[in-house]
């Protein structure tokens, strides 16, 4: 018998751990995928995944079905990602000349990406292309990056992203446009 999310949530609220596990398994691929795209390394992604579901577990007892479970879950996922401090940034050498704060517009524009061990020729030849793209996406401000990951990689609609980030669709569009503009600045030597 197929149980709905609502059935599983009610059972979890009654203390059924198996129901919670089933609920996790329904969505955890998507959560891990977002975390991997956002964090760019396995350890951070696993930390994010764990933090998301621990928060879900804690919050589920007060869940009142006022929104879809999935919307609530992905809102938690985006919140956890946006507030997460990476364990390690060793794979990325980014020098940031600006405050890492709320200023979404100016943040990325003043960064300088440097790739230790890669000459400009190596970069343009594409030998480190994957790394360069990842570093460029990673250099976006948290909200720009999250919006871009959800839209471009995960294929969510702008309306859905707005629900997850708890903001207006216009704001999501703005993050998205800024993200594209910053990525173009970073990557134009590679693809132009």
């Amino acid at each position, binding site marked *: 018998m197929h149980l709905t999310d609502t059935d599983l949530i009610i059972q979890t609220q009654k203390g059924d751990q198996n129901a919670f596990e089933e609920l996790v*398994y329904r969505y955890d691929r998507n959560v891990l995928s977002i975390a991997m795209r956002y964090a760019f390394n*396995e350890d951070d992604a696993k930390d994010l995944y*764990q933090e998301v579901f*621990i928060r879900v577990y*804690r919050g589920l007892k007060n869940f009142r079905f006022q929104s879809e479970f999935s919307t609530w879950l992905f809102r938690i996922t985006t919140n956890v990602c946006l507030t997460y401090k990476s364990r390690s940034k060793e794979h990325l050498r980014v020098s940031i000349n600006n405050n890492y704060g709320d200023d979404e517009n100016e943040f990325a524009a003043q960064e300088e990406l440097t790739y230790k061990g890669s000459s400009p020729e190596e970069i343009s030849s594409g030998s480190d292309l*994957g790394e360069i793209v990842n570093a460029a996406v990673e250099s976006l401000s948290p909200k720009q990056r999250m919006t871009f990951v959800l839209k*471009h*990689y995960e294929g969510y609609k702008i309306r859905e992203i707005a629900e997850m980030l708890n903001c207006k669709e216009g704001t999501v569009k703005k993050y998205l446009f800024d993200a594209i503009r910053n990525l173009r600045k970073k*990557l134009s030597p590679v693809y132009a």
Partner: protein
Amino acid sequence: MKHNEYKQLLQLSLFGELKSEEQLKLKEHLLTCEECRTELEDQKNLLELISGKKKSEVDEKVLTAARYQLRGALRSEIANKNIFGSTIDSIAQFFTTPLKFAVVSATMLLFGILIGSLLFSKSSGEELKTENGNENRFASLNENINISNLRFIDSDASDGEVEFTFQASRPVRLRGKVNDPQIQSVLTYAMLNEQNPGSRLNSINAMDTEVLMKYDQDVKNALVTVVMTDKNPGVRREALKLISKFPYDESVKQTFLYVITKDTVSGLRIEALNSLIEAGSQGNKLNQDDLNLFRQKLQQDDNPYIKLRSKTILQEYN
């Protein structure tokens, strides 16, 4: 519509977010605007470049490891909740029994007297004072209390007094059978969270009983988490040895494969490899994916024994 607005429509178009009438407007504009056509091409190229890895799926091994870690964390979460929850439940249950009202009233009265005596005594609340020639109130706490995190509020002794805060914790002694759920809960928690590697090691060794190995899935999940995440190789080794005593199944196999592919300590990789081979000799055959892994190991592992064993396994299966 202004030119800049068309540029925004371009981006939304590439993300499949335009309504049909907007799409039509944009199409008409593109016919006459060279700049926007160039812009469209430029953005397509950018997104193609970024889409290099777009279609890759979530790595099953990462997902499995994440699920194991989550189980461990949830177990700790539940264990913590149970410790406080059961106490609160017991209190609540006690207070809701009608016959207990008289006892509760008497207790409340005594409690009130106790609070009153504390409030009106020389020391009150959590503030403890020692005075020359007077009783040593700290010593009256208990000799078994551990002191930690001492922080000075006033370290200037020029006026003859100092003030500080500290944390005091009392050890709890618990004795019981290893398969007692409470004992298991504490040991599993310690296995995953205890700072001291020796304590984690002892917790794992304490679990090494026939009963647990056969029946407790939660202990197995915790051991898998330890094998995958513990920073101490000795602790990982003990957990791996214990897992190899569990009945062989897919999760046990995945744990061995995880160690063989990911662990940096060659001794542990060898231990996992031997366990896998032993399971194979008992009728648990390896599949094509496992054999591919050994092909990879044969080429990439820096340990000669692992290379040799991988080669032998591949020969046996050919």
